[in-house]
């Protein structure tokens, strides 16, 4: 079932098909969207896309980890991680329970 991988190029192609812009500009717009999302996550730490999901930056505290190969204890330093919470609508669509907007 999970055979294909969709990339930036596919998104750019979809934008090109949907709106009457050049392929180059369509690709630049896709890049711009992703870059704006990244910048916003680095800034206020949250991006909410209705009917799709929410990206949030979480602060993780220091904890003790273990090297799985040697069993040696190593500290895992505090770090920032990005989490994505899919909207209920996206979850339902993935399970075939709702139709697209």
């Amino acid at each position: 079932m999970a055979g294909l991988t969709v990339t930036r190029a596919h998104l750019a192609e979809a934008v090109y098909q949907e709106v009457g812009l050049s392929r180059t500009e369509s690709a630049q717009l896709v890049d711009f969207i992703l870059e704006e999302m990244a910048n916003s996550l680095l800034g206020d730490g949250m991006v909410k896309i209705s009917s799709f999901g929410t990206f949030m930056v979480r602060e993780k505290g220091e904890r003790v980890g273990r090297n799985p190969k040697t069993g040696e204890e190593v500290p895992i330093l505090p770090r920032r991680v990005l989490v994505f919470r899919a909207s209920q609508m996206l979850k339902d669509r993935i399970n075939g329970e709702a139709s697209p907007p």
Partner: protein
Amino acid sequence: MTKSDLVKRLAAANPHLYLRDVEKIVATVFEEISLALTRGDRVELRGFGAFSVRARDARQGRNPRTGDEVEVPDKQVPHFKTGKELRDRLNQEAD
């Protein structure tokens, strides 16, 4: 930032585009990702991250209010893994 903020920024950076086209562009990007996940495909956006769908087995759950046991059917759940570049940027700027 919300989807409408994203539309505003894209519009401000591209004054030659009609607002309705900017809205369509943003909607298309998220709709394409959603459609790919609905098909069970993976979406890999280099430098940003990758979306995939993972299978969850059916399990015996419990209604937290009543304590009744309920059958939770197997399902597909969306998953996002942050790309290396973005993960590194998040931690550089935290220092």
